[in-house]
């Protein structure tokens, strides 16, 4: 089977594509947030949905603390950079969904409120969030770009 099918090569190529994809987006807030000096744990951690869920929850808690809207810049699924102003809401968000076909191209799409509608944002594609608390966060100088 391993002679007939290059499955290992397929997995390696997929991983390389994802690595390359995030290397080009190393300065994104999400990449900084999900990286860090965690060593081997970061690789295990990155392969779960936990970092994305955590970032989504962190954004929600940030919105809760702010009185006004918080500008968020992100790249949508088509590569277009968008800017939205998000606010806190007590409404229940629509259920999050996962975009992709396997772990290598999977992205958690979370929902945030802009005051009128729910905005679907691929959490890993968040570029920046304008908030005064941000400079206090030590991202540890980056780390695992597979996150």
């Amino acid at each position, binding site marked *: *089977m391993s002679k007939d099918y290059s499955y290992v090569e397929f997995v390696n190529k997929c991983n390389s594509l994802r690595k390359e994809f995030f290397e080009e987006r190393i300065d994104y807030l999400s990449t900084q947030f999900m990286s860090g000096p965690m060593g081997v744990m970061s690789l295990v951690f990155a392969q779960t949905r936990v970092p994305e869920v955590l970032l989504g929850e962190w954004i929600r808690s940030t919105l809760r603390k702010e009185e006004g809207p918080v500008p968020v810049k992100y790249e949508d699924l088509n590569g277009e950079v968008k800017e939205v102003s998000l606010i806190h809401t007590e409404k229940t968000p629509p259920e999050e969904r996962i975009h992709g*076909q*396997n772990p290598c191209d999977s*992205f958690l799409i979370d929902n945030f409120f802009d005051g009128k509608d729910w905005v679907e944002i691929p959490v890993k594609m968040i570029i920046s969030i304008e908030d005064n608390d941000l400079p206090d966060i030590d991202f540890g100088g980056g780390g695992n770009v597979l996150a």
Partner: protein
Amino acid sequence: MSIDSVNDLSIEVHLLKKKHNIEEFYDNINKLLKDAGIEPIEADSPKSTLTLEDRITINYGKKIANTLDREEVTLDGLDDYCKSPEFDNYTQNRNLFSKRSGICPKITLMSSL
């Protein structure tokens, strides 16, 4: 190569799947598993982060659990299994499967032996 968006990444992964005949590969893996009396593995899913080896190992575990007529595999259960005549067949099946698939399922029985 520059990938300009999430959707581009998905397209590249899809093309790689086609190029490497991954679906056919899974079909053949499942034929082997069926021959060995093991439940077929699930196809790739963005919700699952299990590797192919992990998926096979889990289903292998299910077979052992079924053989032992238990809901789950425990070390005591594995000890019983290793001391039973069925273990010889299991070893033969495992070696046969490993040889044919080129994949060695990550089931370590050493700790219970």
